């Protein structure tokens, strides 16, 4: 009998911990009301403005127990750039904070003060998508080579390989 019950719970998960994350986020940040969605078990998404990103990020890290930043995914949304900060808890929940950044102009502040290993993630969205991360500590670029032409962002949708002229002497 108990195994049947288990099977039922497995089929329709209660999503209790996911709902708790949702409630606590909405309680701490009223503007997030309706913007926190539960996709499935262990997957929670929240739309955050660029200005509030750090407040929500630090709150999730320190108060909601999301100590890991898995990575930052950058996307080209035609008119602007999208950024997803994937946070993970030890219980396996991934909370993704979705924010936007302009294609030209300042983007969000660096998150390296809270996640020291995030500089490579940030350099990646800088190199590949042209996100203007503010306050990024000095260091070598990643992952494009040093001689890569300025203003060419390969992961932007309008970028094609023809835009890249290979200098004859390097070929």
């Amino acid at each position, binding site marked *: 009998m108990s195994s049947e019950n288990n099977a039922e719970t497995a089929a329709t998960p209660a999503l209790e911990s996911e709902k708790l994350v949702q409630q606590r986020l909405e309680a701490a940040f009223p503007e997030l009301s309706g913007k926190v969605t539960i996709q499935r078990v262990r997957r929670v998404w929240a739309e955050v403005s660029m200005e509030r990103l750090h407040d929500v990020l630090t709150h999730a890290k320190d108060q909601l127990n999301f100590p890991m*930043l898995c990575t930052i995914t950058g996307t080209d949304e035609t008119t602007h750039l999208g950024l997803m900060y994937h946070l993970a808890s030890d*219980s396996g929940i991934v909370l993704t904070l979705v924010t936007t950044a302009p294609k030209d102009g300042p983007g969000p502040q660096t998150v390296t003060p809270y*996640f020291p290993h995030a500089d490579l993630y940030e350099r990646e969205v800088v190199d590949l998508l042209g996100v203007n991360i503010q306050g990024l500590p000095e260091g070598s670029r990643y*992952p494009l080579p040093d001689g890569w032409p300025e203003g060419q962002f*390969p992961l932007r949708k309008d970028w094609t390989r023809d835009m890249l002229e290979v200098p004859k002497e390097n070929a």
Partner: protein
Amino acid sequence: MSDQDVVKIPLGPQHPALKEPGNFTLSLKGELITEMGIRLGYNHRGIEKACEQRSYLNDLYLLERICGICSHSHSTAYVQAVEEIAGIQVPPRGLYLRTLIAELERVHSHLLWLGVAGHEIGFDTLLMYSWRDREVVMDLLAALTGNRVNYGYNTIGGVRRDVTDEQKADVLKATDILEERTKYYAHLAGQELTLTKRLKDVGRLSKEDVLRLGVTGPTARASGVKRDIRKDDPYAIYSELDFDVVSNEHCDVFGRTLVRVGELLQTYKMIRQMIAQLPDGPIAAKAPRKIPKGQAISRYEAPRGEDFHFVRGNGTDKPERVKVRAPTLVNMQAVAQMMKGGQLADMPITLAAIDPCFSCTDRMIELQDELGNSGQVYSWSQVREIGIRHYRERGIDFSDLSKRLANWRERI
């Protein structure tokens, strides 16, 4: 010592101590490392961009080639995300077989690592032993999937090959041999002075640093942080398997060795369970060519730690975005920490101890010829000709030497 006594030496991108290109700038005071700068990206191949221009099924084979060692890890992580977006239910037998190959891949990867670690500390006997044993699992993978590496086993909706009863028996037989050998290595790790003296207190990484730097995989578990995606965020059939997360508090390379050897023993346990419980039925569900709009995150415990994939579909047969984050990218930051205060001579083993894979980390090169045209495949003789021409243009000509060598060969 004043700052003037600090000597900076570059290691890499091409260096005999490195198996793959990476650049490390070591600041040294005498033999002690005070700081380390890292420059990566030499293996950047533009795979993420290439994925956007190919169909979901093409991408599966492309992503599998991110890395030759954990190829099944990348293809599974990707295919799970695609299946989630499309709402495809993979049949249980498909999931079991996918997980079986995943665990066999872990065996080959960990045994490979053990050999590399032995080599880095000048203990080449261990390299010869463990790589010989690794052939058992390589042959098994070749028999089950058709390939030693880049198995091409996954497909969207399941797997591409079924196993026969004879193959199941072969898996069990091979597991027995591998387990016996692994137990010998576990025994060796505690007894063999070459290993203990050379690995203890080398490449230290505290539990606090693991948590601060978000370290993943066996590197984290050897510092007492019991993170394992197979338990924390279970995928495939891991929730149905009985296994323990192996960890210890050594916080050094020795601890990382024990974790990997311990994990192998857990893996053999899982393989036997999978063979015993393998359900009947189809191995794959039919998958549509076009994948609906949507996005999914897929996490996978690769042999080196968490492999993270993000896929976004736009309703066509090509994905809108594919993002890959391999475990080495996270763990590289920890290497800089491990090096601080360490000996220069410990650098190769400390780096090797995270089991780095720069191909995974940098992912993304398309072949370009001198005119920038892509997609050309060179034959071996063409590559040789280009190489000879390249050096001749720079005043290095071996033709005289070649002639003399040929004459010499004729004489003997």
